[in-house]
């Protein structure tokens, strides 16, 4: 199982109960790429479609970043294969919103 850490607003949009924590798990067959993890996430939580990846381009929305194992994966392509420790469920894929706003 792959662990994905979601920002607060995506957790509420997905209908997750308060207090369940930031991480959700999804099952992804190899190869475990960023794109395939997002496919699985959107399949399990359809209301997240269009909120992480732009519908038109399929690319990461500008104010979101992807991290795992203390590495910034934001600029890797959707076909980038996640580190083995993420594949094994020991580390999460972090989806983080930019610290900005008012």
């Amino acid at each position, binding site marked *: 199982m792959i662990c994905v850490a979601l*920002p607060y*607003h995506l957790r509420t949009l997905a209908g997750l109960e308060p207090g369940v924590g930031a991480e959700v798990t999804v099952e992804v067959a190899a190869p475990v790429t960023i794109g395939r993890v997002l496919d699985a996430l959107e399949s399990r939580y359809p209301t997240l479609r*269009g*909120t*992480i990846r732009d519908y*038109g381009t399929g690319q990461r929305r500008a104010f979101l970043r992807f991290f795992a194992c203390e590495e910034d994966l934001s600029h890797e392509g959707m076909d980038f294969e996640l580190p083995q420790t993420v594949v094994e469920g020991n580390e999460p894929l972090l989806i983080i919103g930019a610290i900005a706003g008012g």
Partner: protein
Amino acid sequence: MSSVRVLVGTRKGAFVLNSDGKRKDWQVSGPFFAGWEIYHVKGSPVDPNRLYASQSSGWFGQTMQRSDDGGATWTPVGNKFAYDGVPGTHQWYDGTPHPWEFKRVWHLEPSLTDANTVYAGVEDAALFKSTDAGATWEELSGLRGHGTGPHWHPGAGGMCLHTVILDPSNADRMYIAISAAGAFRTDDAGKTWKPINKGLVSNTMPNPTGEVGHCVHHVAMHPSRPGVLFMQKHWDVMRSDNAGDQWHEVSGNLPTDFGFVIDVHAHEPETLYVVPITSDSMHFPPEGKLRVYRSRTGGNEWEPLANGLPQKDCYVNVLRDAMAMDTLDDCGVYFGTTGGQVYASADSGDSWAPIVRDLPAVLSVEVQTLQ
């Protein structure tokens, strides 16, 4: 007994305000979708418990919500707004071509006859329609593609389609307005469109009387007179008596003819309301006095309405979709401010009181009169 439900969209969520027909005591529910920008919430005239809401965020883009119980609970619905075909380009601020890019839904207009049908005006300007209660959306691309689209350009708030008016006497006729392109009309249910901007004069344009390019802020219509339209333009309050074919100015004695909102009394089709704003450089009321202006003559002759509104040190704005009417015998008038107040008058504007005063900045106000 009748009651009133006010639907408020704000920068940080939606709120639902309920009162009985006396409109003295208000119950505030919300925030719904806390932390999200709610550009618009509007109910179906066919089924008042069916509400649609536009929920958006700079981080997560556009999502859409639907309620089937008058706003008590909500369900996310479809949020895919794909332009029909190759989107093409419009003008950017500097006059260069810029690709059409979907950003958000500004305005929702439920059908007058079918609770599952709703129109969405979006930025970058286009009109979408759903016939399955918001599950899927299809562009009415005849508007964007009718020919003048490459010459449209954004206003300061973006290139938004912010006004959608359905003609209750003619199911094929619809009006829309775009900042900064102008007003447009279809007479075949959205297949084909034409600009209806004759008579508008915008001195900031290279051609002040051009066919498109006008920064229309809002348009209003009384349902009993669907051929009569009232417009608050960037500058100028305008009127058309022939479905937009020709406009003439009715700013008259207003202290300034800049503003955003315009609306029509529920029972008096020649009674109009605007909120004059100092200028395009100073988005607050003149002299720090918040005043609604009312014309009982269809324009030109205006009277200030200030009873109960702050008359000193008031520097809020009233945005284009933030005024609405109820249809009780004594027409109620409501508007929201960027300072988070929603003011109401239960006597056609003669006196005012805040029904809630510390919300986030108000983006939109709609009213449902319930039996």
